[in-house]
C-alpha cells in the first residue's frame, strides 16, 4: 500500500510537471484510427477502451478529430507516411520509434493460447513441434520472447496471418492453427465455453510491455507530441484512465494494467 501511495504521488508530481506543456493547438482536423481488437475496440458494438480513451482525449483537447476503423497493418503504414495522426494501444520497437512517438498509458503481458490436444505444456514444446502453426495478426509485435517465437516460426513457414482476432479464434477452433498470442483484452473471447474447453494458456516470461497513444512523427511536431503526451499523463494522473479500464476489467486488474 505504501509503495502504491508513493507511486501515485510520483505520478501526480509527474503530472504537475507535464501540466506545464501547452494544450494541443487545434490548427486542423486530426485523424485517429481504431482497430478491432477484443476489449480495446469492437466494431460490432462500436465500444471499447480505445474508443473511450479517444473520446476523452478529443474532449480534453477540444480539437476536431476524425475517427475511423482500420486494419492494424494499414494503421502503421499510414502513421509512417504521416497520413494518419494518431492511433491507440501501440507498442514500440526500434523500427517504429523512427516514425512514431508514444504516450504510454497501460502495460500488459502476453500469453500463448494453445489447443490442449497438441500436448504443449511450455513454449519450447510449441516451437519444437513442426506440425503446429501459430496464428498472428499482420503487423502485430509483442514482448521479446513472443517476438522471437513469431519470427522463428515465420522463418519456418509456420505462421498464418490474419487481419484481426475473429478469424484466428475461428481457425483455432477448426484446428487450422494450433496457437495464437493473446492479451488481457482478449479474455472475453475465452469466456466462450467451446474455446475455453479446448485451449490452455502459457505465459511468456517477459516483463509487461507498455502500450500507448501512437503519434506520427511525420504529421506532428515535437511540441505537438508533447502537448498530446501531457493530455495522456493528465488522464493517468487524475484517475480517468483507470476509470476507463474499470469499465472493462475488475478494479484490481484495471489497476495492474494502468499502474506501471
Amino acid at each position, binding site marked *: 500500500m505504501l509503495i502504491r501511495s508513493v507511486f501515485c504521488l510520483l505520478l501526480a508530481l509527474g503530472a504537475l510537471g507535464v501540466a506545464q506543456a501547452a494544450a494541443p493547438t487545434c490548427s486542423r482536423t486530426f485523424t485517429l484510427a481504431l482497430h478491432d481488437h477484443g476489449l480495446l475496440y469492437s*466494431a460490432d458494438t462500436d465500444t471499447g477502451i480505445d474508443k473511450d480513451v479517444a473520446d476523452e482525449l478529443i474532449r480534453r483537447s477540444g480539437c476536431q478529430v476524425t475517427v475511423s476503423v482500420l*486494419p492494424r*497493418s494499414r494503421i502503421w*503504414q499510414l502513421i509512417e507516411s504521416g497520413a494518419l495522426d494518431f492511433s491507440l494501444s501501440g507498442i514500440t520497437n526500434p523500427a517504429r520509434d523512427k516514425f512514431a512517438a508514444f504516450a504510454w498509458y497501460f502495460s500488459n503481458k502476453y500469453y500463448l493460447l494453445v489447443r490442449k490436444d497438441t500436448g504443449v505444456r511450455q513454449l519450447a514444446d510449441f516451437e519444437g513441434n513442426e506440425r503446429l502453426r501459430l496464428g498472428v495478426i499482420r503487423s502485430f509485435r509483442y514482448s521479446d520472447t513472443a517476438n522471437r517465437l513469431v519470427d522463428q516460426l515465420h522463418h519456418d513457414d509456420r505462421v498464418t496471418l490474419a*487481419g484481426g482476432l475473429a478469424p484466428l479464434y475461428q481457425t483455432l477452433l477448426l484446428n487450422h492453427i494450433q496457437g495464437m498470442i493473446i492479451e488481457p483484452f482478449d479474455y472475453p473471447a475465452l469466456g466462450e465455453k467451446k474455446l475455453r474447453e479446448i485451449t490452455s494458456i502459457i505465459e511468456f516470461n517477459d516483463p509487461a510491455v507498455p502500450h500507448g497513444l501512437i503519434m506520427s512523427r511525420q504529421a506532428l511536431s515535437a511540441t505537438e507530441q508533447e502537448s498530446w503526451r501531457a493530455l495522456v499523463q493528465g488522464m493517468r494522473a487524475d484517475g480517468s484512465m483507470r476509470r476507463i479500464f474499470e469499465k472493462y476489467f475488475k478494479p484490481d486488474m484495471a489497476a495492474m494494467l494502468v499502474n506501471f
Partner: protein
Amino acid sequence: MRWRLLPLLVLALALGLTWLVWTHERERSRTALRAQFDFAVRETVSRVEQRMAAYEQLVRGVQALFATTGRLDRAALRTYVDTLQLDANFSGIQDIGVVQHLPASDKDQHLTEMRRLGLDDYVIYPEGQRDRYAPIIQREPELRSALAPLGFDAWTEPVRRQAMERARDSGMAALSGKVRLAVDPATRATPGFILYLPVFQPGQPRDSVAQRRAHLVGWVYASFHMSDFVASLYGALAPGLSVAFFDDVVLSDASLLYRSTDYSAEPQTLAGLKLSANEYLVLAGHTWTLSVSALKEFQSSLGRDTSPVIAVTGIWLSLMLAVLAWLLGTGRDRALRLAAHMTEELRHMAQHDSLTGLPNRALFSDRLNQELSRARRHEDQFAVMFLDLDNFKPINDRFGHAVGDLLLQQVARRLRLAIRESDTIGRIGGDEFVVLMPELAATEAALNVAEKIREALRQPFQIEDHTLLISCSVGIAIYPDDGTDEISLTKSADQAMYRAKASTREPAARS
C-alpha cells in the same frame, strides 16, 4: 603416400567449399524468394483493403447524402450516382441501392407511398407476414431494376440479414458473406457480396447499440460481383501468383468467391520451397480467406537461381584442382623415374651394340678385366675367343647393308644359343665378335664351344628371299698360358684368329 593423399585432400576441401557456397547461395535465394512472396501477399492484401476502403468511402457518400437531406430521397440518390460517373475504375459495383427499415405496422403506409411514386407493381417479396421488413426501395442505375423488381426483402435472406444487423448495431460498414445478387439470374451463379452502411434518423443519438436500433431508418448498399471486384484492384497482381478468395475461413467450392485461371491449391516447388499462404482478411467486419500460391513464373520474375550453376561449376573446378594437385604432387617422382629409365637406356646404349644388342667393346673389356681379377685371385683359367665372319663383305656388297645387318642380327642370336650361359659375347667390329669364357675347367672346353659356334653359323641363313651361307674363323687365347692381361690376351686371340683364317684346315686356332 603423402603425395597420394594430397589430391584427395584438395578434392575434399574444394567440394566442401563448393557445398558451403552452394548452401549459402541456395539459402540466400530461398530467403529472397520467400521475402518476395511475403511482399507480394502483403501487397495483394493491401490492395484489397484499400479498394474496399475506397468503395466504403463511396457508399459513405450516399449515407452522407441522406444524413444531409434527412430522408431517403430518390431523386437525390439518382442525381448523386449519375454525378459519380462510375467508370471502369469502379466496375466492381453492380448497383447502389437503398433498403428501408420497415416495422410491420408501417407496411401498408409504405406500399401506399411507393405506389404514389408511380411504382404500381411494387410489392414486398417474398410474401408473408413478418414483424419487420427490409425491402429494397431503390437501385441505381435504375436499369438494374429491370433484372429484379424492387421490393425484395433482404431481411429474409440470412447472409444479408447478418450483415445488415452488424451495420445497424455498429453504425459502420458491414460486408456480407457470399450471395447471389438479386439482379443476377438464378441460373448464372456469379459469386457476389454486398457492402451495407446504416442510415439513422438525423439529430437522434446513436451512441449505443440500443439507440442505433431505435433510430434506424434503413441502409444504403453497394453490391458487387467478386470477379469484377478483383479486376478493379489497382494494377496487376505480381506475375506468377495464383490467387483465390474464399468467404470466411473454410476453403471449399461452396465458399469460393474467386480464383485465378491458373489457381491450384497445391503449390509448385520453387528452389526446394513450396510457397503458399492462406491469409485471413477482415473487411468491414467480415472475413475472407486469401489463398496464394507461387508458380514457376514467380521465380523467373526474380531472376535466375544461381545455386545449380555454383554446384556444377564447383564440382568441375574441384575435380580439376584435384587433378592439378596430383600432377604437382607426383611430378618429382615421375621425373626421377623417367630420368632413371633414361639413364639406364643411355647406359645400355653405351655398353651394347645397337644392331645386335650384344655387349660392345667397352662392356666386354670391363667384364674381361673383372674375370682377370677373379682368375688371378683364384688361380683359375679362362678363355678369350675372337671370331670373324668369312665372306661377309661380299654378301654386304651384293645384297646391301640392310641384308647384311639382318644377317649380323641372326648371327648374334645363333651365337647366344651356342655359348654357355656364363659366357659373354660381344661385337667389336663390323663382322668381328668376341667371346669371354670364364672359369674354364680345361682348354678343350674352349675348342668345343668354338666348334659349336662354327657349326651353328655353318647352317644356312634365310634372310628375306635369300638363302645365305657363311662361315667363321675363330682364334682362342687361354689365361694365363697365352697372356696375363687384356692386351696380351686379345692380341693372342687375334693372332690365332688370323692364323685360322689363313688356314683352311684349321678354322679354329689356339694361340
